[in-house]
């Protein structure tokens, strides 16, 4: 998926523009390898969030991967030595490819696609970081890429879920936490509150009436 390159470039440029060394962007693309986590980490570092808050916020943001993994449990079972890499590289984009293309049932094909995706992402972030440190251009406004990414993921989820409740819960918890708390603390409080509301809603319903996952 060549689509990884431009987003990687945007990440690399933004990382350098925020005052980090050129090698930080490619390092993050290897160590973290998640566009949303990497963009959020830049934002949290700039906001002066504590290391604990960074860890919890990125884990909660990444919690969607838990459900990708659950649906790949059976698929990855026979993949042998490739399994650790397949698990580590299970990004949003790779998951959407693996869950829609039948030929990826072959672990060798799944492995190749995962590796290729990370290669493009790494190349993009390296290009962006190098270009961002060599060329001086006005990158004001580039941080909007993070907002755009979250909006796109929200629209995708709306198309799948087709129920307003979880989005309304998220909006209410998000706005409530924003009004009550400073910005760097609102994320955890809002996600915690949303979890609580969803758990209460789950308990309110009789067991066994819940539909299967997405």
């Amino acid at each position, binding site marked *: 998926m060549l689509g990884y390159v431009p987003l990687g470039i945007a990440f690399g440029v933004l990382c350098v523009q925020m005052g980090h060394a050129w090698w930080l962007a490619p390092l993050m693309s290897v160590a973290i390898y998640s566009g949303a986590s990497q963009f959020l980490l830049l934002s949290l570092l700039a906001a002066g969030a504590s290391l604990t808050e960074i860890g919890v916020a990125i884990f909660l943001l990444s919690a969607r991967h838990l459900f990708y993994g659950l649906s790949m449990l059976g698929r990855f079972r026979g993949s042998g030595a490739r399994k650790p890499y397949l698990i580590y590289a299970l990004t949003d984009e790779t998951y959407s490819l693996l869950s829609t293309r039948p030929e990826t049932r072959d672990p060798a094909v799944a492995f190749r696609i995962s590796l290729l995706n990370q290669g493009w992402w790494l190349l993009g972030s390296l290009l962006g970081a190098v270009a961002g440190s060599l060329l001086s251009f006005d990158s004001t*406004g580039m941080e909007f890429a993070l*907002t755009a990414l979250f909006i796109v993921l929200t629209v995708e989820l709306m198309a799948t879920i087709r129920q307003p409740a979880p989005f309304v819960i998220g909006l209410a918890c998000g706005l409530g936490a924003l009004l009550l708390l400073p910005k760097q603390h609102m994320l955890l409080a809002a996600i915690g509150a949303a979890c609580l509301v969803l758990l209460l809603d789950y308990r309110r319903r009789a067991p066994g009436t819940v539909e299967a996952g997405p």
Partner: protein
Amino acid sequence: MSTGTVLLAVAIGALATIASRALPFVALSRHHDHPLLAWLGRYLPAAIMVILVVYSLADLRPLKLDDAKGTPLLLACALVVVLHLWRRNVLISIVVGTGAYMAMVQYGT
């Protein structure tokens, strides 16, 4: 901010991301059909994503209508939603939306 602090933050971010990917294979394989997991799997990502939209709007540019960046921000958000509903292409939505926002804040509306 020292390089050490940044590297520590990257290591923590890496652990948190890898944990989210590895946990199902390590700990949840016996509970994959638990109704609570199915419930959270269906609704929690949606709530979290809306919260992240709110967070990113609040954190990066204060949402004030008298702010020079307030109107471009709302316009760019609307553009991303419309583009994505229309083309359903992640790349087009993000690149065009970000480009439009950058043009608006750099050259004025």
